[in-house]
């Protein structure tokens, strides 16, 4: 079920979610990222959600769980491109996405990760 292309850029993975995901697809995406991160020994993962116009509690959990699991692997996962309407909806629902950092764009996320990584090595 590899519907989300995952690219490698230097020591980071970039995954851009282009379409609505079913629950199963979301979980498959999660495991694929974990596998790839491990296999390629990458330090950071950027998940771009600029095309997602709904992030419900389930998807929010998938993303925050992913960030926690990636952290256990010694890497860092971040989000980029959260849509304004999605952000205000999550806040209205009382969800905060605290466990994952978010960035305005892929660029700024990438810049941040590479800067951070040039200061330290992977555990």
């Amino acid at each position, binding site marked *: 079920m590899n519907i989300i292309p995952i690219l490698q850029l230097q020591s980071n993975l970039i995954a851009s979610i282009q379409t609505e995901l079913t629950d199963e697809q979301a979980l498959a995406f999660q495991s694929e990222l974990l596998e790839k991160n491990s296999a390629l020994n990458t330090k950071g993962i950027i998940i771009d959600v600029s095309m997602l116009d709904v992030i419900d509690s389930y998807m929010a959990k998938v993303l925050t769980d992913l960030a926690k699991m990636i952290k256990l692997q010694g890497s860092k996962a971040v989000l980029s491109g959260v849509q*304004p309407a999605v*952000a*205000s909806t999550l806040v209205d629902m009382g969800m905060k*996405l605290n466990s994952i950092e978010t960035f*305005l*764009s892929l660029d*700024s996320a990438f810049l941040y990760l590479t800067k951070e990584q040039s200061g330290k090595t992977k555990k």
Partner: protein
Amino acid sequence: MTSYQELGKIFSKNNREIITLWLNEITTKINSERITEEKDCKLLIECIEECFLVPPTDLLGVEEQVYNSEQFKRLKKELQSFAAYRALNGYTPTQTANYLLTFKKIIYDLIYQKHSDTSPRTIIDFNNFIDYLVVISFQFYTDSRDEIINSQAYALEHDTPIVKISKKTLLMPLMGIIDTIKAQKIIEGLLEAAVEHQAEFVIVDMTAVPTFDTHVANNILKTILAAKMVGTQVILSGISPDAALTIVKLGVDLGHVETFNTLENAIAYSIKS
């Protein structure tokens, strides 16, 4: 001689009198300033007269000719600004319609007194002409009114100004009392602008917000959280001692938010970071 030519003659012979009588009627009936009305009325009469003086050709029927002429087009254009001005300045529909109806009355009186040999055809054509003008000016009036209403609604929806003060910083001065609906608009506006301009910081200035209740405080908190989720940091400035007290008393946790008492300090912070 065509009926319109006859009308043209009546008009040019009695130009001064027509203007004076019309203006007198209007200023009494509508109770407005003579100076304002004079310019518009003179212009309208001029345009109407020009329509009557359109030289007849053999190609079209006389009536068709007048209504399709450049002069008539000009008359319509003047009527449109005339009606729009009235709509904008609070004239009622009745007042606006009365201009031309009064005009009709004056011309009829004039014809009766001084030009009683005017052919019935001419009078009928004149009547139809003015009636048509009344109808279209009324349409212009209502169009203008609708446009004004729509633009006010638009302004209501878009009244939170957002200023880009640097490549990565936006400034949003909040003003007045913020109710729930306005707060929603503010949040949406801020988030959309932040993403559109890829702004790392948005300074929300609260100097001009007089009251600070739980709702406002909570809405500000929501804004900050949603902005963080999008990737922008909200900086608050202009929080008065009163407001600061309210925030603390209400238990709203603005712990992670950078706040500054003056706008300058807030801007300085954004430049430094």
